[in-house]
């Protein structure tokens, strides 16, 4: 078994509520992050992911629970004595120091000999492809360059764990996508455990080995990106990661993991994979991703998960065409058709008001309890 880099057990952080009482910013969170892992905390703003990270860094003290880094209990260890380093959201570079002095700061605090500081700073700057920029001031650098310096400043300390608080949030889309791949490559190169906080699901899916999805202070699901996307364990995760169609109903039948659901208010029965422990008669939500539904212009020869409808809307977005199909007065589905064939005649495929049939395989629908 790989060594555990970070262990968080039953962590609670309470803040006083302005309206009186307390709020649990972090609500009984338990995590295990392995050595060398790229681990993301993903969730909407205010979900407690940044507070969790700040507790790992030592800037916040937990109300209760345990935090161990490399097996050592660090609950009452101040930030300057922890073997972790942080890349701040706004970079927090020292404006009165040069790039070199910024990166050297952490080593000076450790009283590393001067010659070694010089060598290590140069190596760190080279690692983030900023060699030769040592004499500049942070204000003379672009956002992307500042981001690299912040990274170098943290990595030069050779921390056991690197904490990153939405480090790409301030960059524009193109640069962000570039940096995502670069960060991932860098992490594999240096082999340091990364704990990465983001609200951008695509970013988390692209880079992470594992993701913890958080909402309202709680961790809802932990798993590799594919598992989070393909097998969300609750409605929130299915909704937050990617896009999906929800059908609500009651569980009518269960047969080796396959669940049949009576859709509320419709004369429809949907079959999907049961997620978690469900019981008959329970209210459930069926989640079907838009790219997993197939559209037919003629009635297909299947009986399960096959429904007739009418094209209500078509949106061409380049790689896909997004089609909205109305199955009943109160039920519409969003379907993404990949544009595999290059054509300018969009009407050739679907037109508004056209009668269509939708189908999906039972394993592409997830039946979630509430």
């Amino acid at each position, binding site marked *: 078994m790989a060594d555990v880099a970070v262990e968080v057990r039953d962590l609670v952080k309470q803040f006083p509520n302005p309206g009186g009482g307390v709020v649990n910013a972090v609500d009984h969170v338990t995590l295990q992050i392995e050595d060398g892992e790229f681990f993301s905390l993903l969730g909407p703003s205010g979900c407690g992911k940044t507070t969790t990270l700040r507790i790992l*860094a030592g*800037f916040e003290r937990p109300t209760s629970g345990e935090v161990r880094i490399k097996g050592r209990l660090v609950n009452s260890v101040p930030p*300057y*004595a922890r073997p*972790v380093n942080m890349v*701040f959201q*706004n970079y*927090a570079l020292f404006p009165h120091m040069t790039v070199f002095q910024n990166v050297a700061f952490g080593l000076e*605090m450790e009283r590393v000999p001067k010659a070694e500081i010089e060598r290590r700073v140069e190596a760190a700057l080279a690692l983030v492809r900023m060699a030769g920029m040592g004499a500049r001031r942070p204000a003379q650098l672009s956002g992307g360059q500042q981001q690299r310096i912040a990274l170098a400043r*943290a990595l030069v300390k050779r921390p056991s764990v690197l904490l990153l608080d939405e480090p790409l949030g301030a960059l524009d889309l193109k640069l962000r996508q570039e940096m995502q791949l670069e960060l991932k490559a860098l992490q594999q190169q240096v082999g340091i455990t990364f704990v990465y906080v983001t609200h951008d699901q695509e970013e988390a899916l692209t880079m992470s080995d594992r993701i913890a999805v958080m909402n309202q202070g709680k961790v809802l699901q932990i798993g590799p990106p594919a598992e989070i996307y393909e097998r969300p364990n609750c409605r929130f995760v299915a909704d937050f990661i990617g896009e999906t169609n929800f059908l609500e109903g009651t569980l009518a039948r269960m047969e080796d993991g396959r669940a049949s659901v009576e859709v509320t208010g419709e004369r429809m029965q949907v079959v999907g994979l049961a997620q978690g422990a469900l019981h008959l008669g329970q209210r459930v939500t069926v989640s079907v991703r838009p790219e997993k539904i197939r559209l037919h212009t003629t009635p297909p020869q299947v009986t399960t998960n096959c429904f007739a409808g009418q094209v209500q809307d078509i949106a061409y977005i380049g790689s896909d065409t997004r089609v909205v199909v109305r199955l009943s007065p109160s039920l519409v589905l969003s379907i993404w058709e990949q544009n595999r064939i290059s054509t300018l005649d969009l009407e050739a495929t679907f037109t508004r008001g056209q009668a269509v049939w939708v189908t999906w395989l039972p394993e592409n629908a997830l039946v979630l309890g509430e």
Partner: protein
Amino acid sequence: MSTSIQTTDDRRQTTALRSWSVFRLPSSVRETPGLVLVSPTMLWLVVFLVIPLALIVVISFAARGQYGDVVYTFSLDKYRALLDQQYLQILLDSLWIAFLTTVLTLLLGYPLAYFIARSGTRWKSLFLFLVLVPFWTNFLIRIYAWMILLRSEGVIAGVMKALGLMQGVGAQLFGLIQLYTPGAVLIGMVYEFLPFMVLPLYTSLEKLDVSLLEAAADLGARPWRAFLRVTLPLSLPGIVAGSILVFVPAMGMFVVPDLMGGAKTVLVGNLVRNQFLVARDWPLGSAASMVLMVLTLLVTLLYTRRFGFGEELRV
């Protein structure tokens, strides 16, 4: 959206300008619009700075008439007179007291400014308000209050006596701050100038991003080292601005040494005042104030050369 508003605004402005051009200015003025635009400032400077200063310069080279009037000649006599040992001592004392006042207000003001800057939003404005409250009372009355406190039979002495502290070291300590000693003058000066130090310090400390201190801690700096390496250098503009705001007026201060120093403490400010109002030797007073001005300017210049101009002083 905002661009469209701006263009409408611009258009309105151009139209306004066009209608104004009916009243044409003489061509010589039109060709130097910059000078015309700053002319109120120039006028202000001439009336309030250049003319009074020129008067003092002229008078400092004049001589004193028999009845205290000014006889306009050109002589360096008054400057020569200032080279007297007694006057040089006064200049040195003034420099020393102003320097001590600056250092003490800095040492007292920095923690206070730091504390206010780190307080919650609601408390901040209250504390700043409290720093400024003394300005609402007449300066003289506040100095008299200090005199009541520091008199040899005053409030502080009374309390110390009642507590049995007025003997040995206690009595010696009180002797240092007793009214009509240099210590009392220093207390009065520090009291008077403290807000001038606190406000610029507060401004620069308030701007300091907390995440910089977190970054320093994260990189292994204990609080004291983080302060020395991050907080202090980043508040340098406030320190420079505050020091100038305290040092310059402290050099010319005469009310506090007059009232709290008694006859014992004479500073340049007192010298100038006495020459004008008591000895009626305006030329000597003018020469002394010229020396004071040049000296202050010199010290300030040296100081800003070393530490840069306080950003807080720049508008």
